[in-house]
């Protein structure tokens, strides 16, 4: 399904919301699983976002400039004996998209509920 450039689907809005929320709690950037957990918590859901759905949405947001991402240093992952994480952080573009999305959405429409359905 084609959509207007610059517009967000509910899951993307929810991801940006989750990153803003995490930043408010002192986490400036988050890896995929942490974002999925935050989405579940904010959306008051039982299920985590599917792997394919989550990473496809993150990639889209990254490509559009709403997110910035980086692979963590290999040394850190090696020290903790786990796979490397990719960290995502919301950008000014992402915040502007989020604000625009909120303004265009009629009052009382919960974004997170729609997003959690995926």
């Amino acid at each position: 399904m084609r959509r207007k450039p610059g517009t967000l689907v509910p899951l993307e809005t929810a991801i940006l919301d989750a990153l803003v929320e995490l930043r408010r709690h002192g986490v400036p950037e988050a890896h995929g699983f942490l974002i999925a957990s935050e989405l579940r918590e904010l959306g008051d859901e039982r299920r985590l976002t599917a792997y394919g759905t989550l990473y496809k949405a993150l990639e889209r947001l990254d490509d559009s400039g709403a997110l910035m991402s980086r692979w963590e240093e290999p040394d850190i992952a090696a020290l903790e004996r786990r796979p490397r994480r990719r960290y995502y952080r919301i950008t000014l573009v992402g915040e502007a998209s989020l604000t625009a999305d909120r303004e265009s959405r009629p009052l009382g429409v919960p974004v997170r509920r729609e997003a959690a359905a995926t």
Partner: protein
Amino acid sequence: MTTSRPLAPAGRPADLAAAAVQAWVGLYTRRLPRAVAAERRALIDSDLWDEAQVAGLIGGSGTLARQRVSRLVRGLPDDLTWRLDQGRATRRATQGGTMRISRVEAVLLASIGVIYGAFLIVSLFWLTQPDPDRWGGWGPFGLSTSLAVGVAGLVLAFRWPIIGFTLAVAGTLVAAAAMPWAWFILLPLPLAALYRLGRSRSRQAVAA
């Protein structure tokens, strides 16, 4: 970030579910550029690891297994559309405007084109002779047509290498059939060029 690594054990059902997820990722990233496939595998491996750490604190292996299978199944449509998008992007990068032929390949193409052109002129001259019976049947006509196709293919190969070379090779094969005594001139050159192009194309695909 190259291949899926074994994850920390999280109990048999959960490990089996993780293996299923990794196998699926391995399947849908097949034939993608190495970097793209490795990145997707690394993302999923990292997620599986973090998922297991959290699940270890709050639930058993069965719960984690169910969660993994559920996330896998619900994500299948997005995995498939992601794969299609990546495949399209790779094809554009390797077949489209970003594909460049090297100077050596350009010289090779031009040389083959000149040889084919010369043969084409001779065969056209032959066709116009009053007594073409010296070399009867469809030979002269087939040779002229197939050489014309070959030359067109070689010209196209500068812009669209795959399409161009396919045409050139098809033309060459028909020309070799029409003029069997000259196959040793016609066949080796385009086949060598095709081999070289295939090799550089696969390098570009891996590097993309």
